[in-house]
């Protein structure tokens, strides 16, 4: 079979990216397949190409509505119209429309909580499924950084649907997560295709500073001197706003992005970043997934994320085009405590679990029980899941283990900022890899960082000027 020809004709690409071809061949032979490919390497193609080549429905489980919408949009964009998404936000009328049209559909995106609803399962069981895709498959593992209990119900669905070929996709999975994915998705003799996480065109830097204020000063200087496009990741909405303001004062074209912003403004900011009207985005981790911008030159973390996996994911948004790019992590001693607090806050302690369980058995809803027990929304989903399947004693134990595990992950990040050996090698070692390459500009520990290529020659942005409304209309349309 000439896969290259199919790739060229259907997608217009000349080459497969590393890993893609192996995954596609495996799935075309109807093998269960686990593909671990870095973010931005083109995991979606791994089901889209074989999906187009085969009869039957490609069913894709995806954890976030925004990710789904984004994928649907990009599939439509290349001309495939037989694509839809079901999630709990659809009206019953829209859902009915999809059900009536299901036999025409090629790709159906679905959220994990929808797929395990019995009416949905019963319906989908009768549809011929060519590939069952589980996107962001690490969500199934409590050891992953983004555990979603709903994913655990997928195994049951797969069994009921007659074990169609399963394609699990993720960017990061260490050995434990890999084992969990295979186990919970009932994958039999799966092909595991793992592409190195190493990104030779990224330069890693850890920048230790004295105080929080030094971070702002450092960022001001950095953004004045070096070029974008870039992302600054911060830990809170408040910091995003403050920092953005301070940097705007320096004349930098930057906007903040977080879940608290009005939807219209969020879309506008993305648009401005894509078109180059903004050079920088200062964001919480709400920004990034589904943003396709290949020429991001810098990702700077104002605060360390909770795990190396999250760091690799976020820093990896730089340099998708393969050109030299920079990943910087800022650090002050207090950060450890701050991040620990944020990380552990989502995990309820023993009295909270006890309280929650008592409220539940007295007939309170999940939401109000969680509120009364002071458990976060994510936390409550996890507790609820475990309470259904474990004794109270075992739930306590599980949470103790989880706390311990999160602490371990955080330690990796702390070790990273204090690292005395190559940062690249260190990051890779967390994923049981060793670095194969030694780029010229490797990392701040290797001492080979050279930022000359980053020096900006652009002048800083002028104040934006409002146009007369007639002028603006002509600019847009004439």
């Amino acid at each position: 079979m000439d896969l290259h020809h199919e790739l060229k004709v259907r997608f217009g690409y000349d080459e497969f990216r590393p890993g893609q071809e192996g995954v596609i061949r495996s799935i075309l032979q109807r093998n269960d397949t686990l593909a671990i490919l870095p973010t931005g390497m083109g995991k979606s193609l791994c089901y889209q190409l074989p999906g187009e080549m085969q009869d039957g429905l490609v069913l894709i489980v995806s954890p976030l509505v925004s990710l789904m919408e984004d994928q649907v949009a990009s599939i439509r964009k290349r001309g495939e119209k037989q694509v839809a998404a079901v999630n709990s936000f659809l009206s019953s009328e829209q859902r009915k429309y999809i059900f009536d049209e299901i036999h025409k559909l090629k790709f159906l995106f679905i959220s994990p909580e929808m797929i395990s609803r019995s009416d949905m399962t019963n319906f989908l069981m009768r549809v011929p499924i060519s590939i069952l895709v589980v996107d962001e498959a690490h969500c199934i593992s409590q050891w992953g950084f983004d555990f979603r209990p709903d994913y655990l119900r997928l195994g049951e669905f797969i069994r009921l649907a007659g074990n169609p070929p399963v394609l699990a996709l993720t960017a990061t999975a260490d050995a434990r997560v890999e084992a969990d994915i295979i186990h919970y998705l009932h994958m039999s003799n799966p092909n595991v295709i793992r592409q190195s996480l190493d990104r030779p065109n990224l330069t890693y830097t850890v920048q230790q500073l004295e105080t929080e204020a030094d971070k702002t000063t450092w960022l001001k200087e950095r953004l004045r001197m070096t070029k974008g496009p870039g992302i600054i990741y911060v830990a809170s909405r408040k910091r995003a706003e403050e920092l953005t303001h301070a940097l705007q004062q320096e004349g930098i074209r930057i906007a903040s992005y977080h879940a608290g912003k009005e939807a219209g403004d969020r879309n506008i900011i993305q648009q401005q970043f894509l078109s180059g009207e903004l050079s920088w985005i200062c964001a919480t981790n709400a920004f990034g997934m589904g943003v396709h911008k290949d020429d991001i030159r810098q990702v700077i973390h104002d605060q360390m994320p909770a795990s190396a996996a999250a760091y690799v994911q976020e820093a990896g948004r730089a340099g998708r085009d393969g050109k030299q790019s920079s990943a910087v992590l800022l650090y002050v001693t207090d950060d450890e405590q701050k991040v620990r607090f944020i990380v552990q806050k989502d995990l309820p302690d023993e009295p909270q679990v006890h309280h929650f369980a008592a409220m539940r058995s007295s007939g309170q809803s999940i939401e109000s029980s969680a509120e009364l027990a002071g458990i976060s929304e994510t936390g409550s989903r996890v507790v609820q899941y475990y309470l259904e399947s474990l004794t109270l004693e075992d739930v306590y134990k599980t949470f103790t283990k989880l706390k311990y595990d999160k602490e371990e992950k955080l330690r990796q990040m702390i070790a990273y900022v204090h690292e005395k050996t190559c940062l690249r090698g260190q990051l890779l070692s967390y994923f049981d890899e060793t670095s194969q390459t030694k780029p010229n500009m490797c990392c701040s520990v290797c001492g080979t960082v050279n930022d000359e290529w980053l020096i900006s020659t652009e002048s800083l942005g002028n104040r934006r000027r409002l146009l007369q409304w007639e002028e603006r209309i002509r600019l847009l349309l004439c």
Partner: protein
Amino acid sequence: MKLSSIILKIAKKMDGQRSLNASLHVLRGKRSGQTLQDIDYFSVKPYFSLLPKLADATFAEAVQSLRHSGLIKESEGIVTVTEKGKRTEEELRVFHFDGWNYRGREEVFFLRLVLLVQTLSQLRDSQNSFHPITNDRKIQQFVKEVLRSLYDSRQNNAQYLADELLLALEMTGISDLQASILCHRLTGVNASGWTWEQLEEATSEPVASLQLEYLEALHRLIAVSESEKLAEKLPILHKLARGIRIETPLTDSTSITKKLFDQGVSIEEIASTRQLKVNTIEDHISEIAANDRDFPILQFVNQEDQLAVEMEVKNNDVKRLRLLKDKFPHLTYFQIRLILTKMKGEYV
């Protein structure tokens, strides 16, 4: 435009009759019988549901500024507008909101417009593939339909839309600043929309004020666009305005109650079949009464009581429910509200 000015306008209409919360409910579009009746009775429908997400703190701050400048006073929970307040209110310009008829749907209109402008701008630039400014499928489908119908008849639609916008904005009677805000929220090739903060910086007007200007401008643009008389001059905008105006004034839940009520089912029976409180059903009935000139009020209050309450209101200018209730202890709040609803149009 300031939130406090809008509150002052509402307070003036309800002068000495209602609490501040009543204004807040109007602005947020609360669908209780009381609020629905108030907006009719005091003619503040244009402000209904103007700011569904208005935060308590924001409201309180605006009220505080009115109090501080001595424009309103509060006693026993009732707001009165001072002499100074009345003068200030008269000096304010006339606002042209139409909250009651759009109730948040204006955003749907605007998203359609944004996406259409973006699409035409991209097509004009021969770019057939781009990142749409909204992922809302309903909006996308709607705009796609509109585009299809446009291209059936002619090319060069970008120019046509530009002409329509220039004409329509002129006809709305909005200020240049308002037109400019609307136009800078639109997106096109190499000219993305502006965020509220960017607009704030460029105009030196606070975001909250800009958003109110925008809202009023948008209401007026929709009014022009949906007008049948102008449909020939503004064919594209007319299409975009389809289905924006709220046609059924009743809430969904109220419609169900209405169906049962029309079949002759009693309030108590409706409450028990629908497993709702009698109070809730009474709210529904008030809403139905407010929207139906021929509402059979005699089913609930006799002629005599009706006349007595009407006299009291007209002669002593009392509209406060509690005062009326004190005067007519044998009537329920529900009955008094119905009478007031019925009176609207005859009085004030």
